[in-house]
């Protein structure tokens, strides 16, 4: 879903750049406040994993492919603030090193794939978590469904950008129908990959999953006089 240079006009791209900078700024501040010590290296790994899986285009329909966007996955693993930064790092590396995603469109791409997927997707994830029982299976299911929805949200963000500053001649309604249609299919792939990844991390290190923090066994303090407080697992 990387927008190349030229699809969206300069003023709209510039405005999106400002929105992206603001969103990244907020994420930096909030992540600095909330990121747990053990989650810091995990966030680096999440970024690297998203880069890797974004290389794996899967076929969705005749002559069309899709790949993981990973924003919701990052949000569930390390939280929506650090998650947005993970995807922004991936997009930066892709645009600068691999010529994937236009430089003038970097703001647009950050808005769609780093902000809309993580924050919008995470809101959907939280709603689902509220409706489902507090179990690991629920976390996996909610992540999968929210991951799928996040792709459609990102495609809608593109349609909005196209409606404001699209340079092509296609009517907005046509682009809307085509984008939402194909990204619903891609969203199914996103949901499956997201659910599988979340399930795998939950199986190995459930304590590292931000979106499952409420399922964690509570901290038990050793109250022996003079004994140090420690985590009992």
């Amino acid at each position, binding site marked *: 879903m*990387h927008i190349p240079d030229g699809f969206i006009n300069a003023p709209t791209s510039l405005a999106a750049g400002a929105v992206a900078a603001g969103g990244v700024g907020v994420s930096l501040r909030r992540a*600095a406040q909330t990121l747990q010590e053990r989650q810091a290296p995990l966030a680096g790994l999440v970024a690297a994993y998203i*880069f*890797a899986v974004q290389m794996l285009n899967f076929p969705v329909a005749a002559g069309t492919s899709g790949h993981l966007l990973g924003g919701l996955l990052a949000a569930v693993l390390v939280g929506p603030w650090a998650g947005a930064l993970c995807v922004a*790092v991936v997009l930066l*590396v892709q645009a600068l090193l691999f010529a994937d995603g236009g430089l003038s469109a970097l703001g647009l791409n950050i808005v769609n794939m780093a902000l809309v997927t993580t924050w919008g997707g995470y809101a959907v994830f939280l709603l689902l978590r509220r409706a489902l029982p507090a179990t690991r299976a629920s976390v996996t299911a909610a992540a999968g469904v929210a991951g799928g929805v996040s792709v459609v949200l990102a495609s809608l963000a593109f349609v909005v950008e196209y409606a404001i500053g699209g340079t*092509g001649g296609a009517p907005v309604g046509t*682009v809307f129908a085509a984008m939402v249609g194909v990204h619903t299919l*891609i969203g199914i792939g996103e949901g499956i990959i997201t659910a599988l990844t979340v399930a795998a991390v939950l199986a190995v290190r459930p304590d590292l999953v931000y979106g499952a923090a409420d399922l964690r066994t509570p*901290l038990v303090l050793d109250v022996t006089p003079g004994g140090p407080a420690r985590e009992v697992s």
Partner: protein
Amino acid sequence: MRSNLRLFLAGGLLVALGLAMLVSGFASSAPDGLNKVAGDHGIAASAKQHLFENGPLAGYAVKGVGNDRVSTAISGLIGVLVTFGIGLALFALLRAMRSGPGSGKGAAPTRAP
């Protein structure tokens, strides 16, 4: 606990490298959803060339490497390591800012000295 986390990170990085270097060779080369829609509806014509179109790694291919699989694998290796490095540095920096003077509200001590 700490070595356990290291092990998890090392395992995760290996998985990422395996996906980017080996599985990527089997990825679909069809246009993605956005590019397909752009192609079908005449938007693609307005695309401009990327400034780094002729860069050494442009398009996930290494300039001068003839074998497609090898070229993609090297791109994946470089991309994963660079992304991991930038991510580690960024989040370590954010952590350092948090534990800086006067910040961090009531972080629980979880590590015995």
